[in-house]
C-alpha cells in the first residue's frame, strides 16, 4: 500500500441556513477552499469522491449528477459514497484508498448537507407496515440506548449536561461553527426542554448547512503544497445489522472491531496516551462517555469518569481533549459531519487549528458513525509518515 497524506483542507461556514448559495455553490466553496489550501487548481485533481447522507434530507435525488460541473469533474471519474451519518468519514477513506492503491496520485473528496432545503429531522421517519409509526427522529431512536448506558454504568445524570457545555465552550473557539454559545452553563442545558428523555434540546446537535473537502495525495506529491502533509496512518470501516438478537447497542461490536483495526495499523495500544486529541461523532451528549468506552479510552462502564474529571476538556487542561472544534454538537451538516471530524483531526496534526489547537498535537483520531449506530469509519492521522 502506498503512503497517502492530506495536503489540503477546505470548510464552509456552518449555519442553520446558507441562503446565499445553492447546493452546487456550497460544495464548490468547500472544494475551492481545499484547493487553495493545497496550492492547487482543478486540473491538478485526477478523481473526485463525493458523499452525503440520505437524499431525502434535501429531497434532491442523486444530487451528484448536477454537482459534477461545480466540482470540476468533466473528464474525470466521480464516485458517490453513502453510509448514512458516517458517510463523511467513509468518503474520506474511500478517497484515501484510491491513492493508497496507486489508482490515482491526487484526489479531491467533498461531503455536504444542506438541511435547510428540506426537513432533515423527519425525512427518515416515514411509516412502515411492519412497525408502528413512532419513529420520532434520530433522537427517538438513540434515547433508549443512552438510557440503557446510564443504567449499566451508573453514570451521574449530569454527565450528558457536562458534555453539552464542554463541546459548546470548545466550539466558541471555532469561528466556523453554526452554534456559538460562549456563555453556556450547566443550568442552561438542564433547563432546556426535554425532547426524548434523557436527551434535552441543548444535549442535541443542531441542523446545519455546510460542506467539507480535502485533497489527498500520494507520497511523491505530498510535499508540493504550502502546508505540511498530514499522513494517514490507519483507516478502517465496519458495519453490522441494525437489529440482531443479542446485539449490544450501547457498545457495538462493529465499533470495537473498527477501532481495533485502525489502532493496529497506526501502532496504537494505549489511545489515551498515544493520541493527542480526538474528533469523535457525538451528536447527542451521552455518546461521549459511550464512545470513550467503545474506542478504548476507558474501561467499560467508566467512560463518564473521564468526562466528569475534565480529561476530554481543552478548557480544563484535560490530557485527551475530545472535539476541540466543538464537534457535531456545534455544527451538523449530517453528510459532512464525519468528514469535518476527519479534517479537524488533520488540522490539529498540522498545528493550524487556531484557537482550538491542542499544543504540540502530532497524532489524532477522526471518527464517524451512522445508521442505527451500525456503520463506522475511523482514521488516525499523524505528522509522521510511519
Amino acid at each position, binding site marked *: 500500500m502506498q503512503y497517502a497524506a492530506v495536503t489540503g483542507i477546505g470548510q464552509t461556514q456552518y449555519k442553520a441556513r446558507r441562503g446565499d448559495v445553492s447546493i452546487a455553490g456550497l460544495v464548490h466553496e468547500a472544494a475551492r477552499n481545499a484547493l487553495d489550501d493545497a496550492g492547487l487548481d482543478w486540473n491538478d485533481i485526477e478523481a473526485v469522491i463525493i458523499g452525503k447522507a440520505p437524499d431525502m434530507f434535501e429531497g434532491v435525488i442523486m444530487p451528484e449528477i448536477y454537482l459534477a460541473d461545480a466540482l470540476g469533474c468533466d473528464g474525470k471519474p466521480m464516485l458517490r459514497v453513502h453510509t448514512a451519518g458516517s458517510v463523511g468519514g467513509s468518503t474520506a477513506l474511500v478517497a484515501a484508498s484510491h491513492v493508497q492503491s496507486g489508482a490515482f496520485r491526487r484526489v479531491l473528496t467533498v461531503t455536504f448537507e444542506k438541511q435547510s432545503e428540506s426537513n432533515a429531522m423527519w425525512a427518515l421517519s416515514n411509516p412502515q407496515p411492519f412497525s*408502528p409509526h413512532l419513529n420520532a427522529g434520530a433522537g427517538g431512536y438513540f434515547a433508549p440506548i443512552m438510557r440503557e448506558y446510564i443504567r449499566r454504568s451508573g453514570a451521574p445524570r449530569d454527565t450528558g449536561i457536562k458534555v453539552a457545555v464542554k463541546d459548546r465552550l470548545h466550539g466558541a473557539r471555532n469561528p466556523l461553527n453554526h452554534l456559538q454559545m460562549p456563555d453556556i452553563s450547566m443550568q442552561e442545558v438542564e433547563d432546556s426542554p426535554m425532547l426524548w428523555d434523557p436527551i434535552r434540546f441543548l444535549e442535541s446537535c443542531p441542523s446545519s448547512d455546510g460542506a467539507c473537502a480535502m485533497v489527498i495525495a500520494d507520497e511523491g506529491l505530498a510535499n508540493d503544497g504550502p502546508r505540511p502533509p498530514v499522513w494517514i496512518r490507519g483507516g478502517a470501516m465496519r458495519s453490522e445489522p441494525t437489529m440482531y438478537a443479542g446485539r449490544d447497542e450501547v457498545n457495538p461490536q462493529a465499533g470495537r472491531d473498527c477501532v481495533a483495526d485502525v489502532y493496529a495499523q497506526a501502532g496504537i495500544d494505549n489511545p489515551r496516551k498515544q493520541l493527542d486529541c480526538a474528533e469523535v461523532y457525538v451528536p447527542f451528549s451521552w455518546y461521549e462517555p459511550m464512545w470513550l468506552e467503545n474506542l478504548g479510552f476507558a474501561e467499560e462502564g467508566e467512560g463518564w469518569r473521564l468526562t466528569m474529571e475534565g480529561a476530554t476538556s481543552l478548557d480544563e487542561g484535560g490530557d485527551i481533549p475530545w472535539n476541540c472544534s466543538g464537534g457535531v454538537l456545534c455544527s451538523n451538516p449530517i453528510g459532512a459531519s464525519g468528514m469535518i471530524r476527519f479534517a479537524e483531526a488533520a488540522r490539529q496534526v498540522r498545528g493550524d487549528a487556531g484557537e482550538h489547537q491542542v499544543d504540540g498535537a502530532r497524532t489524532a483520531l477522526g471518527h464517524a458513525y451512522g445508521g442505527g449506530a451500525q456503520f463506522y469509519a475511523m482514521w488516525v492521522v499523524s505528522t509522521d509518515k510511519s
Partner: protein
Amino acid sequence: MSEDAGEHITAIETPVYLKYNFTAGQATTRFLQQVRQGKLVGQRRPECDCGNVYVPARGSCAACGLPTTEEVELGDKATVQSFTIVWIPIPNNPIQPPYIVANLVPDGANISFIHLMSECDNDSVHIGQRVEAVWKPEEEWDYAMDNIRYFRPLDEPDVPIEMIGKVPLAGWEGEA
C-alpha cells in the same frame, strides 16, 4: 448585481411526493398475514445453533444470513428492554406528547421492536417492566403493526436484566 436585479432568490417551495409500494417479501408477508389475524408470530432458522426468534421477521437470521423458515407463535406479553419519553409530536400522527416509545421483547422472541406504552404513569415506566398488548377491535385489523394500539403495564414481577430478551413463551412469573 445590477440595481434592477431584484431580490436574491433563497427559497422556492418545490414539494416532492413519494408513494411507496412496499413488497413485503416471503418472511414479512407471513408475519403480516398473522398480524392481520391478531397474532404475533416470530420466525427462526431451526438449523441455527443460536435458535434466535426474530419479530417482525425481515427474512433472515442476522447471525448467519440464511432464511428464517420456521414460525414461532409469540404471546401478547412482553418486557421493556428500554424506552424514551418523547416530548415532541410526530407529524401526521395524532398522538400527543409526552408519550412513551418502548423497545419491547415479546415473550418467546429474542429481539425487541418499538411500540407505544399507555395506561401507565410515565414516571414509573422502567427497564425490565412487564407489559401486554392491547389490540384494536378486530374489524380494524389490517396488515400492520398498528393493529396493536399500545402496550400496558402488567402486575407481574420485573424481569432481571440478564433475562431480558430470553423470556420464553411460557412467560415470567418471578424468580423460581
